[in-house]
């Protein structure tokens, strides 16, 4: 080992330290090349990244969307200072609507001015074809219109708020046919790929489709971003007359990207500033600021370049990735600095180059071990079935490798350009945490164990309280426009998150028709003498399937009952279905339910354009299916998404008597919930795998079962406490916070490996556990302490973000770092001292 190390050390000395300028030049060339690829770096927060590609509900959602013709839209809420039905207010709304309609790539804009009014004054259904009264019509009775809007089952709590103080203007984007086509083709190819039936030519085509879709999505994202900016610009012109907010899934997605990007920029600079300050305070030397930051900058740039090169999109889940890489690079660099300073102090006669070489040689192994173990931890993410999580795993594997490689090249090269540090002032004397912890460990061993057990209990009970819940609205601070807008839509304009319930009333039509024919035409007609009696009346057999006869009063009563049931759930906002439309029709029928005949008549008489408006979105006669379009109040505190979905399904089956296979729940809420549930499951599974992988790695590294078990303990404590704090603090597990568990493992592992690796060395010196512990605390402990302080302070600035997940990330990373440090410097040495995994010690006196 020693010869091989000295051989590789010699090689490193010759190649890297011998020609530092050339190697640096080559590194800069390579990183610059990758830098050019960084332009291709993409951030994707679209709904697609939040859902599971193999999710059956995704296919169902896409079917429902295409069957009932859903289109993407945003909502502008308008709360005028004067009365909503004032002439001037209505004029302003009209102007706003026209201005919005002029924006490029907007299909249509609808406001309360366009809503057909049936009772202002009352008009027969048949006249709707020729005479539609709206607030724009000259013959409209505004007093009646006000009453109609307030009481209308359709408009109330959707187009206008219940108190008639606010209205919603819907801005509809054109259907993305190109994107949908590409998506369909990609799904087909992906299916074939999984089945292994993709031919070579199809493989090329598949790659083309993927590239085209990615390009198209990028263009659409840009277009939507421009649309939303343009809508906001138009809204700004009307803010003197009213309070306006923007809402809708498209806007949330766009704002999410904007928030993440702005956080990356703003807080990237903030984190950098804080890092500089902390490094300055700790090391008091310009070189210890320049070198670590150069390493961080180049490693991050190279990695962003890799992402662009491979076309890996950073999603909401992996948006913490850059910060993580920064943490890891910074940790490696600080370990190298501390080791360098230590060696420089211990070997005053050695040259700078010798000390650099010794620093690299002595630190490479523990850093490599730490990196490999962290890689093993993150590799567990690759086993998840969620694409963004898998990508996050790969990103971290690549990122850690890049950081390790570049830091071990740039650090020594950069340092070789400086003079040797003669004497470095130790900053820990200002606050000697490591010495305090060493003394604490020595004198309060049992207390450490008791505290650790207590902390573990705290963590475990906290984990029990963890919930997989979150809403988009909770991502933003209450002071933000996006929060206020979503809250307003949630509370007064029908809710924000879409959920679709579709009910099949029978078997698929083909089977149904078949069964009628078999029963009627051949066997029975021949068997019964009376068969002839029906022979002259075959018209009924033929026309029975006509669409108009689908609307039976029995079916309508069930639809109305389901509509009322869904509406009565406190967490649901607006429920629109055929049931809502029937309520309007009943109003026109003097409040009485329509009988079968009237229903069929109504269907026949309804003008085609009205049919597209009131029937097509809610009924598919062809599929014997009715749809209930629900908007869920995202901000409702009692909302438990998984429970709500399960309850609706259960009640529809058990209370309303539908077969399980006839009840379909689809839409954003379902997909989002599936994602969270599966994320939770996969995290629990992958966390288990990560722990197993860590024990396995420890076994290889330390070749001791006892030591491996000791090593895993602070890691478990770190995960336990971080997750426990989340549980107790009521921070829900969502796709952003759920990665914290993985991050805390990564951080804790680093400290554990460095500490144990050094401990083994120090123990060899005098085979005294206590003395080795003190020496470790004063050497590697310093590096761990500095790393933690630098990162905790550096990331604390994230608390100022308007984006709640960034705040959690800043705080929880700090917490993970702190716990890992304390555990590695108290519990870990205490366990080592207690269990003595390195064999019996030699009494100092005897020695």
């Amino acid at each position, binding site marked *: 080992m020693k010869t091989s190390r000295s051989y590789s050390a010699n090689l490193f000395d010759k190649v890297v330290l011998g020609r530092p300028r050339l190697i640096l030049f080559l590194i800069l060339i390579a990183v610059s090349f990758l830098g050019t690829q960084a332009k291709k770096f993409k951030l994707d927060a679209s709904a697609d990244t939040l859902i599971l590609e193999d999710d059956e509900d995704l296919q169902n959602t896409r079917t429902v969307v295409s069957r009932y013709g859903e289109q993407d839209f945003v909502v502008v809420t308008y709360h005028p200072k004067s009365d909503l039905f004032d002439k001037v207010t209505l004029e302003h709304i009209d102007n706003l609507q026209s201005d919005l309609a002029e924006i490029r790539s907007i299909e249509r804009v609808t406001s309360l001015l366009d809503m057909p009014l049936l009772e202002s004054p009352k008009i027969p259904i*048949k006249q709707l074809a020729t005479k539609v009264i709206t607030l724009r019509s000259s013959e409209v009775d505004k007093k009646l219109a006000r009453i109609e809007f307030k009481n209308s089952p359709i408009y109330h709590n959707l187009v206008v708020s219940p108190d008639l103080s606010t209205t919603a203007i819907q801005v509809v984007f054109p259907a993305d046919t190109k994107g949908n086509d590409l998506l369909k083709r990609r799904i087909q190819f992906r299916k074939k790929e999984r089945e292994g039936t993709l031919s070579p030519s199809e493989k090329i085509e598949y790659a083309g489709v993927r590239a085209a879709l990615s390009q198209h999505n990028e263009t659409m994202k840009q277009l939507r971003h421009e649309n939303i900016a343009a809508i906001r610009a138009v809204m700004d012109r009307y803010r003197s007359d009213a309070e306006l907010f923007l809402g809708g899934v498209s806007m949330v997605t766009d704002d999410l990207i904007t928030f993440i990007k702005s956080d990356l920029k703003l807080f990237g600079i903030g984190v950098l500033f804080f890092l500089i300050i902390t490094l300055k305070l700790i090391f008091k030397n310009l070189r210890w600021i320049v070198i670590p930051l150069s390493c961080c900058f180049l490693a991050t740039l190279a990695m962003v370049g890799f992402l662009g090169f491979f076309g890996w999109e950073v999603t909401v889940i992996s948006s913490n990735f850059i910060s993580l890489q920064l943490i890891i690079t910074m940790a490696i660099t600080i370990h190298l600095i501390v080791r360098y300073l230590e060696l420089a102090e211990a070997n005053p006669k050695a040259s700078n180059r010798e000390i650099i070489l010794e620093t690299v040689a002595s630190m490479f192994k523990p850093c490599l071990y730490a990196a490999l173990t962290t890689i093993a931890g993150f590799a567990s993410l690759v086993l998840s079935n969620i694409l963004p999580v898998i990508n996050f795993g790969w990103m971290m594997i690549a990122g850690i490798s890049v950081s390790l490689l570049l830091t071990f090249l740039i650090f020594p090269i950069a340092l070789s350009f400086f003079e040797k540090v003669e004497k470095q002032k130790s900053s820990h004397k200002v606050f000697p945490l490591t010495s305090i912890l060493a003394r604490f460990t020595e004198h309060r061993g049992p207390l450490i164990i008791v505290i650790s057990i207590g902390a573990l209990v705290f963590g475990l009970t906290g984990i029990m309280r963890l919930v997989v819940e979150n809403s988009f609205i909770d991502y933003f601070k209450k002071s933000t426009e996006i929060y206020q807008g979503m809250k307003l839509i949630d509370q007064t304009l029908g809710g924000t998150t879409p959920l679709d319930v579709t009910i099949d009333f029978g078997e698929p039509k083909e089977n149904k028709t078949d069964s009628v024919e078999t029963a009627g035409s051949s066997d029975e007609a021949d068997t019964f003498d009376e068969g002839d009696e029906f022979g002259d009346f075959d018209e009924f057999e033929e026309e029975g399937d006509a669409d108009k006869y689908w609307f039976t009063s029995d079916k309508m009563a069930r639809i109305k009952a389901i509509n009322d049931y869904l509406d009565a759930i406190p967490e649901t906002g607006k429920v629109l279905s055929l049931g809502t439309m029937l309520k309007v029709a009943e109003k026109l029928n003097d409040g009485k339910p329509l009988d079968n005949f009237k229903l069929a008549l109504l269907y026949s008489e309804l003008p085609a354009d009205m049919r597209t408006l009131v029937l097509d979105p809610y009924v598919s006669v062809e599929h014997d299916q009715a749809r209930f379009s629900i908007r869920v109040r995202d901000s409702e505190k009692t909302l438990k998404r998984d429970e709500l979905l399960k309850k609706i399904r259960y009640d529809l089956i058990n209370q309303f008597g539908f077969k399980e296979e006839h009840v379909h729940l689809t839409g954003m809420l379902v997909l989002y919930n599936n994602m969270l549930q599966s994320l939770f499951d996969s995290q629990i599974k992958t966390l288990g795998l990560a722990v197993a992988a860590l024990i396995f790695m420890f076994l290889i590294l330390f070749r001791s079962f006892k030591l491996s078990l000791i090593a895993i303990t602070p890691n478990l404590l770190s995960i336990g406490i971080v997750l426990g704090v989340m549980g107790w603090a009521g921070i829900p597990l969502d796709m952003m916070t759920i990665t914290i568990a993985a991050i805390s493992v990564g951080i804790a592992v680093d400290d554990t490996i460095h500490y144990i690796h050094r401990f083994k060395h120090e123990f060899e010196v005098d085979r005294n556990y206590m003395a080795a512990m003190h020496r470790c605390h004063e050497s590697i402990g310093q590096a761990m302490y500095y790393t933690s302080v630098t990162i905790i302070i550096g990331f604390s600035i994230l608390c100022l973000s308007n984006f709640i997940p960034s705040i959690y990330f800043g705080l929880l990373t700090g917490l993970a770092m702190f716990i890992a440090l304390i555990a590695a410097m108290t519990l870990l040495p205490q366990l080592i001292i207690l269990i003595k995994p390195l064999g019996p010690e030699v009494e100092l006196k005897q020695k």
Partner: protein
Amino acid sequence: MKTWILIFLSLSLFSSTVFADELSEVDHFMKEKLSTVMKVLENKSLSKEQRDAAVLVQINAAFDFNKMAKLTLGRKYWPGLSTTEQTRFTSLFIQRMQASYLEKLDLYTDEQIAYNPPIRVNKNVHMLTELVSGDNHISMRYKLYKSKESGWRVYDIELEGVSIITTYRSQFYEVLDKGTINDLLNKLEQADGM
């Protein structure tokens, strides 16, 4: 050959004469029944009970409710019922039909009936009428068949293309496809807007 042509021609003429006779028979029959009903409706001196009773006499004579009951269940379900079930169903169905018809009379204001010539559809005859009130025209098609016992009788009415029999049938089938005849009979007894 000539004889054959003559026979063929005379047969054709005979059959068309028969058809023409049947059409005018239906035309006459329906006009008489409908105009009597209209007269009853226009007579404002009658109480609701008197009016309903007078109308029922006419529609009972014009409509074959027994046939209509059979047709709503069709060959898919009617032959499978026991005689008792058939009788019970027919009686409940007739009650329902009559009640529904009389209920619609309350909506009568000043409508007049415009008649179009009847047409033959297979063995049956359809009488086309329009209910006219101001600018409003509602098309009504009375479908008649020739009963061996009592001559021409209405077996279905289409209002604006919507058939009463098919409407009932779709509703009844919905119940029978999932349940039993007793479910349907109970529903009819409850009179819950079927």
